[in-house]
């Protein structure tokens, strides 16, 4: 193995540091650490990691990595520690030589709990400050920032001097400042400079560091920290509002998806469809089935599973919708109460059918890789999954708007809604249009199910939690108006999220209901009232 120069610097630095530590008779800290792994105690394992981080032994990184992956094995009786390689071969951790004639079955993996995992992160941070990969160095700097382990300081200084990548350099400087700020050994001026460095980071973590100065810190450091804290809090308060608005948009997009199908069946056709939520649920289960099939037959397509599920869910739930309309609802037009009861019965039948087929427990729908993870926009953490759902909701909305405005079936739907008898006399098959409209609404609900499978339980009860909210959105936005549904969903979402931090989730929801009731009292037709003769009748 060729020693790369950063590693050599690390060794040099750590060797210098290690000479200051009193040594045990024969063994160095590395051997002491290995001995501690064999005691099967979390406290000892964590202590061993601390020793490893500063042991200066080149195999320390390997041992820490092995422990993180559960590949570090011990023989407690013999006091030996082994590393299992990726190919299953064993190596003696003390010498690094392959271990022959060891019964792998008799060995125990060193166990990790949260405390040990925290220590692993800190140790691997301290050990990979000189890693050739800048991403690893950045992660290391962040780990050191979190652990604030003063013993890493010499290594950190060496790393800082060598670092060329600006982002990593800044992270290292912040990590260094976090250590210096709390160290009583550092000169006062340096600590005040550290306050400024931390304040530049300006996030929650920086705030935590500044708020937790040791009580013996000099007054000047404390004053600098106090003014820095006030500054950070002001910025964060602004970002807090932005964050709530973003969450509101996200909730609004979910409401929009859930309600938009209902805007067709209830808003356009006037059918009180209590089984609407179950259409959403069927869409989610379609996604589950599609994913299972893809997993079984073509795992490479997994990232596209949601895209494949969208048309299938649309056609499947649309078909179910047409069947429901042809077999039940068409006999009940104009009889709101009977429709309500009949569709409620259908919703129970669908729920129990799914429960019988798939079982009562939740089903796991995986997230494709492009929907996982977050991106930081300023101090706002935007999760890709939520962002895609907003985009998707808007696309579905625009597509539906286009269908209603630009296609023949859309024209016929609007004609039937506005004046059924006139439309019939113009030669439009109103029966057929009714079935298609209901199918379209149900199909859109199915598409919503595909998106909701990403953020909610895929269980037979999925639909129930959305039905009330959906009606609320449609009624609030104005029956029969798609734009009303859009504005209604977004304003309810944002209002809910702005209320929630002050009133709590339960009271916030109640407050929102009261507001909507008062609003409907004032404007019974909702935000955007539709005008037309048939509506008046």
């Amino acid at each position: 193995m060729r020693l790369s120069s950063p590693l050599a610097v690390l060794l040099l630095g750590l060797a210098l540091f290690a000479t200051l530590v009193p040594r045990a008779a024969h063994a160095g800290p590395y051997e002491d650490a290995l001995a501690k792994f064999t005691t099967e105690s979390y406290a000892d394992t964590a202590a061993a990691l601390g020793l490893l981080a500063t042991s200066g032994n080149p195999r320390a990184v390997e041992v820490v990595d092995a422990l993180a992956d559960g590949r570090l094995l011990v023989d407690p009786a013999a006091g030996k520690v082994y590393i299992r390689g990726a190919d299953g071969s064993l190596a003696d951790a003390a010498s690094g030589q392959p271990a022959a004639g060891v019964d792998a079955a008799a060995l125990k993996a060193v166990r990790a709990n949260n405390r040990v995992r925290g220590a692993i992160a800190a140790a691997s941070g301290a050990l990979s400050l000189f890693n050739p990969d800048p991403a690893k160095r950045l992660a290391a700097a962040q780990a050191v920032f979190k652990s604030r382990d003063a013993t890493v300081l010499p290594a950190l200084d060496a790393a800082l001097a060598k670092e060329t990548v600006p982002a990593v350099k800044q992270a290292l400087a912040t990590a260094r400042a976090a250590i210096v700020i709390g160290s009583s050994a550092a000169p006062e001026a340096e600590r005040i400079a550290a306050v400024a460095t931390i304040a530049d980071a300006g996030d929650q973590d920086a705030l935590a560091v500044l708020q937790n100065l040791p009580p013996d810190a000099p007054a000047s450091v404390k004053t600098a920290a106090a003014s820095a804290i006030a500054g950070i809090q002001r910025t964060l308060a602004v970002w807090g509002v932005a964050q709530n608005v973003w969450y509101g948009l996200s909730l609004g997009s979910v409401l929009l998806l859930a309600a938009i199908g209902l805007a067709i069946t209830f808003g356009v056709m006037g059918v009180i469809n209590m089984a609407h939520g179950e259409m959403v649920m069927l869409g989610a289960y379609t996604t589950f089935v599609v994913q299972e099939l893809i997993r079984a037959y073509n795992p490479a397509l997994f990232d596209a599973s949601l895209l494949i599920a969208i048309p299938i869910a649309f056609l499947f739930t649309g078909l179910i919708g047409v069947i429901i309309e042809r077999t039940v609802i068409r006999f009940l037009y104009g009889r709101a109460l009977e429709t309500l009861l009949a569709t409620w019965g259908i919703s129970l039948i669908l729920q129990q059918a799914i429960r019988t087929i798939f079982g009562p427990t939740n089903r796991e729908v995986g997230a494709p890789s492009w929907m996982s993870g977050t991106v930081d926009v300023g101090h706002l953490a935007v999760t890709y999954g939520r962002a895609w759902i907003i985009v998707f909701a808007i696309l579905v909305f625009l597509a539906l708007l286009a269908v209603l405005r630009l296609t023949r079936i859309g024209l016929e739907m609007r004609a039937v809604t506005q004046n059924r008898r006139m439309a019939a006399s113009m030669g439009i098959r109103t029966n057929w249009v009714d079935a298609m409209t209901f199918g379209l609404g149900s199909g859109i609900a199915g598409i919503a199910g595909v998106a909701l499978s990403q953020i909610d339980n895929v269980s037979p009860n999925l639909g129930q939690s959305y039905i009330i909210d959906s009606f609320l959105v449609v009624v609030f936005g104005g029956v029969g108006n798609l734009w009303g549904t859009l504005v209604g969903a977004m304003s309810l979402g944002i209002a809910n999220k702005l209320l929630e931090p002050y009133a709590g989730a339960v009271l916030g929801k109640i407050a929102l209901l009261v507001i909507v009731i008062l609003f409907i009292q004032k404007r019974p037709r909702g935000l955007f009232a539709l005008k037309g003769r048939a509506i008046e009748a």
Partner: protein
Amino acid sequence: MLKLFSHAGRVVGRVAAGAAALAIGASVSAKAEDSIKVGVLHSLSGTMAISETTLKDTVLFLVDEQNKKGGLLGKKLEAVVVDPASNWPLFAEKARELITKDKVVVVFGCWTSVSRKSVLPVFKELNSILFYPVQYEGEESERNVFYTGAAPNQQAIPAVDYLMSKDGGEVKRWVLAGTDYVYPRTTNKILEAYLLSKGVAKEDIMINYTPFGHSDWQTIVADIKKFGSAGKKTAVVSTINGDANVPFYKELGNQGIKATDIPVVAFSVGEEELAGIDTKPLVGHLAAWNYFESIDTPENKKFIAEWQAYTKNPKRVTNDPMEATYIGFNAWVAAVEKVKSTDPDKVIDALPGIKVPNLTGGTAEVLPNHHITKPVFIGEIEDNGQFDVVWKSNGLVPGDAWSDYLEGSKDLEADWVKLKCGNYNTVTKKCGGS
């Protein structure tokens, strides 16, 4: 199905016996002696079906196993299953139906506290026995009910103690998050009193309630993150129930809250609940229970193997309320065998003191307060949806019906053997609460 058959059998028996009234009586009693009926009162539809269906299967499995061993008192056991459909008043109706119409001698059932409270008057009035297999908030001890799940001192308090210890991360700041109903509210009241008594400052405790089935956790998780970045080690104690857990954990993963930063310890999340989530982002989050599927004992291995064979599903998981059902069922069988009768009064008197093995290598003893002794385990979620036990109690913990940390309940004591009272006040020396 079973119910239908037995009823038909009885009718056939009557017809065959002909006109003689005496003969009819004889045939009915002969039929009744053929089997002992046990009731199963778990929701098979509605919101709670997700959790309760498994317990119904568990009782059927246990009845099957017992019958393979030759039944009880020389008779076959017969399970009568009803579906209260997650509808609390229906629980009371179905309980009445089981006891009066189907003549069951014992009932295994209920999950939520509200369903238990709803059937209590029925069991008292008709003097039957209910085995309740779920961890609950305590503050109750009834003559007709045996609580085989954990009381707060067998789950919540040890979990908090663990988090305060060095191994648990010396947590100084607490978020008590729960669903808005009786179990989380009472448990959090007890925990808050306990934390304050341990010197935790009031501003270091954040209490948050959410509605049933809450699905948009963005704001709350962001709040938790903010609360947790005040520099003191923070943990979340979650009494979030059922369906709301999956979106909660998904949001934790989304916002990058790792167990090493802010661990979440849950009291209602077990192997069953994790079956619906990808657990990789959740590794290290905790749950406190009295049983985990991963616990390596011969009894547990045998139970899992038999359960998976019975359900014909090699992936079917086991969980804590299943073990509680197992213990309750075996304790009842042992008590019936002891008094050679299924008469509720005799069985109720015989149950305290009964000892049956649990699945984790210990013994569950039915106590005079109708709770049982249990070991406490704390497990960390692993990437395979199982739990790795990181802490276990020193021996068995006796269940305490009345919390020692709540004003008004700390003086109460439940003892159905000597005191014959479920809420004896040790200060006023009277039975009947505070």
